């Protein structure tokens, strides 16, 4: 395998570069996935049938907690990549695990939030609005859940196999994914929650 030492390890082989570009293009597709959900959300936002509206069920506290958790985890996954690039395995693993823990906490709050919605009568089957709300949030939440497992696998590989061309490549791609989920959350936070409560 040819190694290019002028690049960070995650870019050092041809296949690694392909993987990273491929993942960027996948993120392009993800932009459209969430754009479609947003388009549907805005269309169905006022169609609440007999159910509650967004303003009635959203609470600022859980939303703020979720936002801070996710923003911080986006910061720590950035630090993970930084530690990885300077070759500090221990720091890298620490930041990586912190990221996943923050993600887990986020997920916990989100599950509580869903429980709350169903409790106040905003279930999946209540109205078009609740369906698209829970689907949009749920799609993001499912991405986070998937990310937690994926991240866990990468952590165990870094631990076992060290900082190699492959593990760095995977970690870097994971960081792209995680940052992207943060971007999506910012839009959810602004245009679903804050717009709904405004």
């Amino acid at each position, binding site marked *: 395998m040819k190694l290019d030492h002028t690049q960070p390890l995650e870019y050092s082989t041809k296949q690694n570069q392909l993987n990273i570009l491929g993942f960027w293009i996948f993120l392009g597709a*993800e932009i459209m996935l969430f754009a479609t959900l947003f388009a549907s959300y805005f269309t*169905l936002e006022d169609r609440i049938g007999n159910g509650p509206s967004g303003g009635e069920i959203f609470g600022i506290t859980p939303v703020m907690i979720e936002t801070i958790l996710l923003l911080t985890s986006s910061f720590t996954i950035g630090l993970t990549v930084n530690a990885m690039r300077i070759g500090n395995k221990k720091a890298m693993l620490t930041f990586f695990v912190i990221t996943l823990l923050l993600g887990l906490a986020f997920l916990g709050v989100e599950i509580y939030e869903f429980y709350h919605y169903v409790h106040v009568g905003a279930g999946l089957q209540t109205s078009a609005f609740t369906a698209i709300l829970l*689907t949009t949030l749920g799609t993001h939440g499912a991405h986070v859940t998937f990310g937690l497992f994926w991240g866990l696998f990468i952590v165990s590989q870094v631990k076992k196999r060290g900082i190699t061309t492959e593990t760095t490549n995977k970690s870097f791609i994971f960081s792209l994914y995680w940052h992207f989920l943060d971007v999506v959350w910012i839009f959810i936070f602004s245009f679903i929650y804050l717009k709904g409560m405004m």
Partner: protein
Amino acid sequence: MEFFDRFAIPHPSPLIYASMVAIGLTVIAIIAGLTYFKKWGYLWREWLTTVDHKRIGIMYLLSALLMLFRGGADAIMMRAQLSVPENTLLDAQHYNEIFTTHGVVMIIFMAMPFIMALMNFVVPLQIGARDVAFPRLNALSFWLFFMGAMLFNISFVIGGSPDAGWTSYFPLAGNELSTSVGTNYYMIAIQIAGLGTLMTGINFIVTIFKMRAPGMTLMKMPMFTWSALITNIIIVFAFPVLTVALAMGTMDRLFGTHFFATTNGGMDMLWANLFWVWGHPEVYILILPAFGIYSEVISAFARRNLYGYKSMVGSMVIISLLSFFVWVHHFFTMGQGALTNSIFSITTMAIAVPTGIKIFNWLFTLWKGKIEVTVPMLYSLGFIPIFTIGGVTGVMLGMSAADYQYHNTMFLVAHFHLVIIPGVVFAMIAGLTYWWPKMFGFMLNERIGKWTFWFIAIGTCVAFFPMFISGLDGQARRMYTYSESTGFGIWNMLSFFGAILLAIGFALIVYNIYYSIRYASRDIGDDPWNARSLEWATHNPVPDYNFAITPEVSSSEGLWDAKKRGHTLFKGPYKEIHMPSNSGVPFIMSAIFFVFGFAMIFSMWIVAIISAIGIFACMAHRSFEQDHGYHISVDEIKQTEAKFGGAKE
């Protein structure tokens, strides 16, 4: 017993029972044949686990041909039913199922894999690459598509086919008005195939961006590669929309949500909207590769370079963007008012400009050329007039006020068939004939090929021109019968006649393949068409590693430069070639997807959960796997090259 009731066909007919028996017998015959000839190992090693883009391309091709006949059978039945007024060959329900599956099969399971087949086979060769960027993902794409197609196709013997049209508008497709599992099949089978398509999109964009031969800048790519790049960009941005729409439709049907239902705030219009946000770009996903093929073929057989290369590229880029700006023209009549309709009317008609540029560029490529009318060229030359008629009627449909009269009529049906048949089917047959020697090492028979063309071309005209007339006379599409007093009889009889000509044409393709396998010469050299681009610079059929030495080019017509200007394509000694190893995971994972899809369709939750876990287990396995492929040594390369009759140095 209640459990088994759900698998019963809601509207059985002798035809369906006969198909069940036929399917059963075929499956038994295949299994018995494989066992008797001891081919299970061969099948597994060489095909089911392959990650080679050429073999994957060939498997796509076989699936596409298979589906062409499945969709064609539907078409013939439809035309037969309508050939005379008040015909009773089919009842309304059966007819509805048939036109629904005809549409879905032809678009999603015939045209798409046909495109994928040629892209898979040709693009890496044309850019001088070893394989695609992610060979294993490529295998997964194919198997997901294949399992989706199979899942959709068993619908008519297990549980019943979808019957709400290929557009599957809600609330007609919702639980209340469509009580069989047919629409579940639609939602889930297309979803699975669509995932595969999305992955192909990513795979080919990266391949084309990053794996071109040295010297091949973006503006020196062959036109088919350009069209593949643009197509895949559209795929990546259009298919997620379908994913979401289908997921929402699935939730409405399986989990009782109210996205598109008409109660509790659901909005039936939103389905139509999302469907066409994907659906219109999908049209260009189908047509752009065809444009690429025609560019290759016309330039090869006019013996001239492609006229206006830059404007060809420019027009495709513009089409790719505009294709996302026009979808509302599919429902001008929904009542969104004059302003919205005006905006989308203008964008729709604007697409005609870049398309027109391409037509004129092909015509000017013929100018001062030395035109040889081979079979692929015949299709390209037949494409231009028929597609022009299909295309200009598209502009007419774009006039939104007039569209109130065309919408949902046979006029529209005539328009899109006259665009898609010359635009996709002609192109695919042209491409198939053109690249066939590269795939299999012999050529298809020229004489049978020309007969085929005339049957198909004339059949297309006879089948679809009468629909313009009956459409303007008030024949709505999707009517399973009509009364004699309407006067539609004569036109539909003509269409039926045209459909028979088409059917003969397609049968001739199969006969041609059979005939050529038996009688065609195997000694045709590497470049039987005297072509221009890189795929003809390697051997026939192509060795596993494609090129023994990576070619270097200085224009979009690498081989032509080598032949006419003494440019050296292959420089330097042989080097070891890195190859990806085969894997059974894509096949197994897709098979689990099939089970998952089937379980979802019939609401068998436990099976669905178990198979979902299986899918994630496959992903986890992939995450931990360490697979570095293998290397082909210089000695081996030399041996192979010698076997092909002389090394290319």
